[in-house]
């Protein structure tokens, strides 16, 4: 097990894995959001090749009302 921070909350995941896999493990839907890893945007096209390591910080953002 490793620990990552997902939207500010410390979360255990089974192992190091790519972004596509962590989305599935965390039970997120497959679209409708964007993701940043350690403050840097991760494009959907790179989900397969971007690896999440211990203590990484992930932001998963979706559309909301705004002014």
């Amino acid at each position: 097990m490793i620990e990552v921070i997902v939207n500010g909350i410390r979360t255990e995941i089974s192992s190091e894995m790519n972004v596509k896999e962590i989305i599935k493990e965390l039970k997120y839907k497959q679209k409708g959001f964007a993701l940043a890893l350690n403050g840097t945007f991760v494009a959907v096209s790179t989900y397969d090749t971007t690896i999440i390591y211990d203590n990484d910080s992930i932001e998963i953002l979706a559309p909301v009302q705004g002014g």
Partner: protein
Amino acid sequence: MTKHLEQTTDTWEIGGKILTSRLLIGSALYPSPANMEDAIKESEAQIVTVALRRQAAGENAGGNFWNIIKALNIHVLPNTAGCHSAKEAITTAQMAREVFGTNWIKLEVIGDQYNLQPDPFETVKAAEVLIKEGFEVFPYTTDDLVVAKRLADVGCKVIMPWGSMIGSGKGLMNPDNLVAIRKQFPELKLIVDAGIGKPSHATQAMELGYDGVLLNSAIALAQDPVKMANAFKYAVEAGRLGYESGTMQAREFASPSTPTIGTPFWHQFK
């Protein structure tokens, strides 16, 4: 009503799009999603601002909101609200581009938590990077002429000075500063963003020659947001017509409008 609209419809360009409405509307703070939808429709705005926030696993609240906005079939302007550095704003803009499918970004980098005043240094820094990455940047800034100049220098085609603090409803704090920016940058698209509280504030901004106004709270927090959206639609239109018509010069003395020749009960006393 039809005659009125035919007389006043004009078109303008912003961010590569041709529009007829000069009112940009926010999507937050409405009593309900249905009320938001009705108010946006009533305003006839063609640009609506949206945002990104953290989503929990399994949630689809964002999807429901986004479906309502998409169905309106108007242009979406995502913001970077809540960002406090150029880096945060750049990342948020990149995320917004992917989610919303637009290269437009309302760039907000806040420098003070109390009055939500934009940080000019970080805003300019972020604008420069985002423009190089192909974004159409709509920067929210103060009414400072030099900051506007720096934003123009890095390639911003649109600048959005505040009227007053976000959500304050105080109207235009420094009309003279807004006029100075207008005069200095006749080629840029200028939008008064933030601080508008009443339709008359929007009219005033348009009379100064601004290309549009962006507001949210003034409509969403009205007792009847849908009716207020209608009021703002006409306020913006009236202000634009006033500007195009050329207002009279103010005078320091009274001047009767009714002819003085033939004034009744006038006597020439000897």
